[in-house]
């Protein structure tokens, strides 16, 4: 353990000489009303230790009973990941002493997962597809939460005392374990990130979890090893625990590639260990030392009968699975007729749902894309916000586009309407009325402005009369300026040419 880590190898250099192999374990907290094994409610942010029963507190005599909804959610996840669903599977006890585990064992599936042997096609930002093989998805319960008080930075070391909140103890989890992900090469960090993101999207569509990374609904452990070539046997891996954002997943892989490459370059061996990820600088550091090679003394949970989902039930669940994100993207791509690159940009910008809803509100796909990927993307960037967080709804964009299509406002005015909506002045229609932005269609005032413009620029009038229509834009511009942009440019052009005769 006293090996000092040599300086990191630059990432590009590392992946030129080593083949990275990743493995990812993702835990997702299921959004069931009650816990995995008892009737305690589970919701985020409740007062500590108010969401408990004798079961989730591990009181003497209490017994677990499996939450049927959690099983259904686990099967949904398994099916969405193209897994086999076990005909019968048991829970086991994972024995270890820790205050946040009320029984001092975690009830978890061990050698009999509910779902196994699946795969997920993961799409990278440039459209490349990488197939990730799923070894298993199993059910288990979450632990409580320790808070260390006193000492430094909330760490247990040096703390004066610790508090335990058992609200989270017993919250249902599904853990999804990949087989070693090979063949990603230098794109391993991207693949890792895209995989976790794809899972998150699937959890949401399946409606099995809120899947909010920042609340810890989805947590990833990232395994990484290097080998000399894709033909070499797998190298020694490290497991970086609790990497809890997409970006962090990517950074953790990059860091471990660079770190392990340096160790291998120095002729040392990588130590198999768990590591912590540090958000501040993207580095990892050694976690618990597995000194007594943790022996969890797994054995089948005798308090629970096996879970045996009938084939009919599994097929019923399969039949009611919603359209999965990738299939939906492909369908919308076809329906909208966007170019591949356009579609990728839409997906990467997180605008898919917004555009779909805007189309549903009456806009054409092209118009919807133009708004969300153009003007609105620009404003979101200015405000450093997500598109979805802008104070305007797809329905309002649909309404705005209809105002343009009907000729009541023009594109330029539409941007002012957008300002109004974003400023909270109401919907597009209200803003148009309140700000008096409706296109001027009465020719009277327009003709006055045109006559004034013609009078001001006799030379241009001459040129146009002489058959050169090019400079007419200057007249139109002057008219638009005079009418503060409220005139319909097409009509102005018609009238100008008429006047000049």
């Amino acid at each position, binding site marked *: 353990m006293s090996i000092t880590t040599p300086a990191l190898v630059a990432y590009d250099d590392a992946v030129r000489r080593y083949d990275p192999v990743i493995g990812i374990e993702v835990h997702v907290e299921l959004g069931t009303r009650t816990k995995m094994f008892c009737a305690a409610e589970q919701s985020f942010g409740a007062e500590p230790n108010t969401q408990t029963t*004798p079961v989730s*507190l*591990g*009181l*003497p*005599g*209490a*017994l*677990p*009973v*499996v939450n049927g909804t959690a099983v259904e959610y686990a099967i949904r996840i398994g099916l969405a990941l193209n897994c086999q669903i076990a005909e019968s599977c048991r829970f086991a*006890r994972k*024995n270890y*002493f*820790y*205050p946040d585990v*009320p*029984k*001092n*064992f975690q009830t978890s599936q061990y050698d009999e997962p509910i779902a196994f042997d699946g795969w997920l096609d993961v799409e990278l930002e440039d459209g490349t597809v990488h197939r990730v093989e799923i070894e298993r998805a199993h059910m288990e319960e979450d632990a409580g939460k320790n808070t260390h008080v006193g000492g430094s930075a909330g760490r247990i070391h040096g703390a004066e005392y*610790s508090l*335990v909140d058992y609200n989270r103890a017993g919250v249902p989890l599904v853990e999804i374990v990949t087989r070693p992900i090979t063949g990603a090469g230098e794109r391993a960090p991207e693949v890792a990130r895209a995989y976790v993101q794809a899972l998150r999207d699937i959890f949401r569509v399946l409606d099995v979890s809120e899947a909010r990374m920042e609340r810890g609904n989805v947590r990833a452990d990232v395994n990484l090893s290097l080998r000399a070539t894709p033909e070499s046997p797998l190298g020694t891996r490290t497991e970086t625990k609790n990497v809890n954002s997409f970006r962090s997943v990517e950074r953790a892989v990059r860091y471990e590639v660079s770190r392990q490459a340096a160790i291998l370059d120095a002729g040392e061996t990588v130590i198999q260990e768990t590591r912590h990820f540090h958000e501040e600088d993207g580095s990892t550091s050694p976690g618990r030392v597995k000194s007594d*090679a943790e*022996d969890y*003394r*797994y*054995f089948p949970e*005798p*308090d*629970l*009968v096996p879970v045996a989902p009938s084939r009919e039930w599994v097929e019923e669940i399969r039949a009611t699975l919603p359209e999965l994100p990738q299939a939906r993207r492909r369908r919308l791509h076809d329906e909208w007729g966007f170019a591949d690159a356009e579609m990728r940009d839409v997906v990467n910008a997180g605008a898919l749902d917004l555009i779909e809803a805007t189309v549903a509100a009456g806009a054409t796909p092209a118009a919807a894309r133009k708004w969300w990927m153009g003007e609105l993307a620009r404003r979101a960037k200015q405000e450093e916000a997500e598109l979805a967080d802008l104070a305007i709804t797809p329905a309002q964009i649909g309404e705005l586009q209809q105002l343009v299509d009907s000729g009541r406002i023009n594109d330029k005015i539409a941007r002012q309407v957008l300002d109004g909506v974003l400023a909270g002045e109401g919907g597009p229609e209200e803003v148009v009325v309140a700000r008096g932005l409706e296109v001027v269609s009465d020719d009277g005032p327009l003709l006055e402005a045109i006559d004034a413009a013609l009078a001001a620029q006799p030379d241009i009038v001459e040129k146009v009369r002489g058959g050169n229509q090019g400079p007419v834009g200057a007249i139109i511009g002057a008219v638009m300026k005079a009418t503060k942009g409220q005139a319909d440019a097409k009509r102005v052009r018609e009238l100008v040419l008429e006047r000049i005769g």
Partner: protein
Amino acid sequence: MTDLTRLSAAELAATLAAGEASSVEATRAHLDRIAAVDGDVHAFLHVNDEDALATAADVDARRAAGEELHPLAGVPIAVKDVVVTQGMPSTAGSKILEGWIPPYDATLVERIRAAGLPILGKTNMDEFAMGSSTEHSAYGNTHNPWDLDRIPGGSGGGSAAAVAAFEAPLAIGTDTGGSIRQPGAVTGTVGVKPTYGGVSRYGLIAMASSLDQAGPVTRTVLDSALLHELIGGHDPRDSTSIPEPLPPLVEAARQGALGDLSGLRVGVVTQLQGEGYQPGVLARFHESLELLTKAGAEVVEVSCPSFDYALAAYYLIMPAEASSNLAKFDGMRFGLRVEPTDGPVTAERVMAATRGAGFGDEVKRRVVLGTYALSAGYYDAYYGSAQKVRTLIQRDFAAAFAKTDVLVSPTAPTTAFPLGEKLDDPLAMYLNDVATIPANLAGVPGISVPNGLSDDGLPVGFQILAPAKADDRLYRVGAALESALESTWGAPLLSRAPEL
């Protein structure tokens, strides 16, 4: 006036229903009896007098108001301290739970309360139900009412002694390897281990989850049937609870008491007799077989060869499960908490100090055994092999029940031994359960019926085993044997127990 403590539960229930005595009178009579004799017997760890009398008064009032009551309403009961009772101490005989007052009731306690049975108190037991003599209680020995210098059996010695000493007409026991039946045998009482899953385990402080089962401790077979029907039946809070309704047990007991066993095939298990069994125990056993034959049963011998390995398998499976079940006793949330006097006070060290101080030797022995049996590299050889033996035992039972309706054996190999005799010899202690353990490993039900006194003047028991979910057969055969025995004796066996 009748001594209410001498009545069986069924008789007392009839007396209450007829208005010849009130539940308050019955409850007070038992509390008085406890006050008079429990100093010698020490069956109770906690006497619940006020609450019991309040329940009794409530039942009396409801009866006076003409309310329809459960048949056992108003009949007092004692509950083994391994069963959690809201508002009442529940120590499981361990220092580690001293002072803990559970915030909830076990399902069977809920049912007892709902039926209006006054709970007299909590009975003594081997710590966490680990033992066959109640000497492993952290709260002192219980004495056998037949001879105060002898053990009352275990782990449920308190419940058996309370019933034998007329301190309670009914009691709840739990049976993981014989803890209801063996105390029944050595105290001259009836004890039933129901089919696994027949009585909810919710609220039983677990020793070995796949073996534990709660059941009745009474003085008559009919009383056991009455209590069994009250506490049994499906409970959604216990995943291993049997969904189907219980077979009619009281009816079976009444039927059996008529004494006709024509057509019944009784199997004598070769492996559960002979060497290691006291001559007096065997003599009573064979006399009882003759009575069954006289009642019309056909007695055959059946061999269950895997039973020879039952004790060994049991002492791997039980400690393995116990080592995990007992992990929760760590001083973090409830019960005893001991901080180390030297060095830092970390959670891990508090857990170690608490467990070191709170557990007795027998508990530690089994936790160590079980931890070892589950360890990586040993799991297959120990726990895995034991589970295979368990399967073989289940097959032996299946084969035997294909040829017979019930299996029989002596309940325990010997009568009650003197206190202290086997305390330092765990193996000799474990051998007490050699005849009762197979039923737990297979999940089948068993009853022990007192069938006389051995040459030493102490009671012995006759064990009847039936296939899973056929608990009614225990009551039919048990009641038939009981009635045949009592007609030869002229009075219940317990009437021959010395006055306390």
